[in-house]
């Protein structure tokens, strides 16, 4: 059976999660990267196409795959199934806001890693829209779920979401202990979830992140990620390699830098053409980010 996943670059942790899950359960999954369609603007998370049916949303895709008999959880008891649900909720509530913040809201990480990475994978007009749109979505998600109603300001909750996330990583580390997997000897959907959340943080080269340095101290969690990468994602495995960040990070870096420079120059030009866009108040936080590159771009392009 050929399953086709359309990846909209909204959440690459979801994507890693599905790849891990499908490999654990033995489903043949063809990952098709969308980087040219206008669908990126309208659709939301990853999408699974199987024959006639279309499934969206991470949890629904997992239950769909379970119905199609690709289940990594056959050997779990009912109690372990309940534990899986609980830990997934823990990840969603405690770790996701901090991850979103690290990748999308933290200005330094966003300008030097996330934005160029996403922009380089979108065609010309979209590369200016898609990253900032996703960043806006991430910010509003954090504010709406964790913020305090009347004010909704990010600076007030940053401390709280990071301390929550660190606590969550500690708890996961306690739970994992010295084992290779969360339940028994084979990976389950919880392993896929934890991997999907933690691996990007572990392998991405972020310029600033307390969370990443905290994760580095938890050796069993980093070892858990490395182990899954090695066993299920290495190049001699029959399935194609995953998204660039983990495996081919080093070779990507040079290309990434060139692309970053190009993108920055282009965005600089566009900005000059359209000052009005920048002056509208709701765009301000996101329009600030190309600024660090202004000076370098200016020096190489005489006005």
């Amino acid at each position, binding site marked *: 059976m050929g399953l086709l996943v359309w990846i909209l670059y909204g959440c690459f942790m979801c994507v890693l999660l599905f790849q891990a899950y499908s490999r654990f359960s033995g489903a043949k999954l063809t990952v098709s990267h969308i980087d040219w369609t206008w669908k990126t603007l309208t659709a*939301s*998370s990853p999408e699974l196409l199987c024959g006639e049916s279309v499934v969206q*949303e991470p949890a629904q895709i997992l239950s769909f795959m379970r119905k199609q008999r690709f289940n990594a959880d056959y050997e779990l008891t*009912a*109690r372990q*199934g*309940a*534990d899986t*649900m*609980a*830990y997934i*909720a*823990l990840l*969603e*509530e*405690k770790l996701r806001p901090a991850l979103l913040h690290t990748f999308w809201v933290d200005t330094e990480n966003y300008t030097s890693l996330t934005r160029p990475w996403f922009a380089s994978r979108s065609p010309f007009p979209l590369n200016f829209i898609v990253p900032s749109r996703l960043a806006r979505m991430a910010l*509003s*998600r954090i504010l*709406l*779920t964790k913020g*305090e*109603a*009347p004010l909704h300001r990010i*600076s*007030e909750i940053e*401390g*709280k979401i990071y*301390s929550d996330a660190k*606590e*969550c990583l500690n*708890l*996961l580390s*306690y*739970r994992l*202990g010295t084992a290779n997997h969360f339940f028994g000897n084979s990976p389950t959907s919880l392993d896929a979830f934890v991997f999907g959340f933690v691996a990007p943080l572990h392998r991405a080269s972020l310029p600033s992140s307390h969370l990443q340095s905290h994760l580095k101290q938890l050796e069993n969690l980093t070892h858990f990620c490395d182990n899954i990468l090695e066993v299920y994602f290495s190049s001699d495995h029959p399935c194609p390699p995953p998204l660039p960040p983990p495996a081919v990070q080093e070779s990507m870096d040079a290309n990434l830098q060139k692309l970053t420079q190009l993108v920055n120059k282009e965005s600089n030009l566009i900005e000059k053409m359209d000052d009005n866009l920048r002056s509208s108040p709701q765009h301000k936080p996101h329009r600030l980010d190309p600024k660090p590159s202004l000076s370098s771009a200016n020096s190489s392009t005489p006005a």
Partner: protein
Amino acid sequence: MIRVNERVLLCLSLTAAEPWPENATLYQPLKGEGFFSSSCSLYHLQTYLRMCGLPVQVVCRPNAEYMSPSGKIPFIHVGNQVVSELGPIVQFSKAKGHSLSDGLDDVQRAEMKAYMELVNNMLLTAELFIQWCDETTVSQITRHRYGTPYSWPLNLILAYQKQWEVRRKMNAVGWGGKTVDQVYEDVSQCCQALSQRLGTQPYFFKIPTELDALVFGHLFTILTTQLTNTELLERVRSYSNLLSFCRRIEQTYFESKDS
């Protein structure tokens, strides 16, 4: 800008040595107002404090939401400190030397936190959804109850404002497109997980913990709140061990102390 956590830590360092005063007061809005979320957290907090053996006096104020330093209810007034929200209150009582989860090891504490997040993630969101996004419930119950303490037109304005806020939140967490039936299904799944975890034990762990207080707060509220239909009630009622769990906590911590 002092964050709530920092404020609590400040309190902790200042007052850790002082014992729990006799005149601690818990403020809550009028009974029935904002019926689900507020009564959940109220039962949760009361159960928690009673499990710790800390006396507290409950006071009803219609504007409790606006008296609280963080704008959230319930909050307690202990000595010369005002602490709001459940997390900080739990930290605060821990600093006073009252903690329920001290007897647990690290793995159990991880499990406890995970189940607490499951309840927050599923039950709390489902309650908010049913309360504010199901059109029949909103028009017949919620808007009226939420607006009761205020006069026209403030009652309508505040209710619509709250509804708008909840809907934005639902959209942000991906629940915006769900139907009520899907939400009932989620509640079922969550209850099933809790029921499997509880099994035949009296509490989730060997001793009563924060998790027991939280689960009791939510389930007891669902069991005692009248809605437009009994679907939610029936879903929870089908798990007999959860029902007897609620009954047990109610008898141990509420009936014996009230009589």
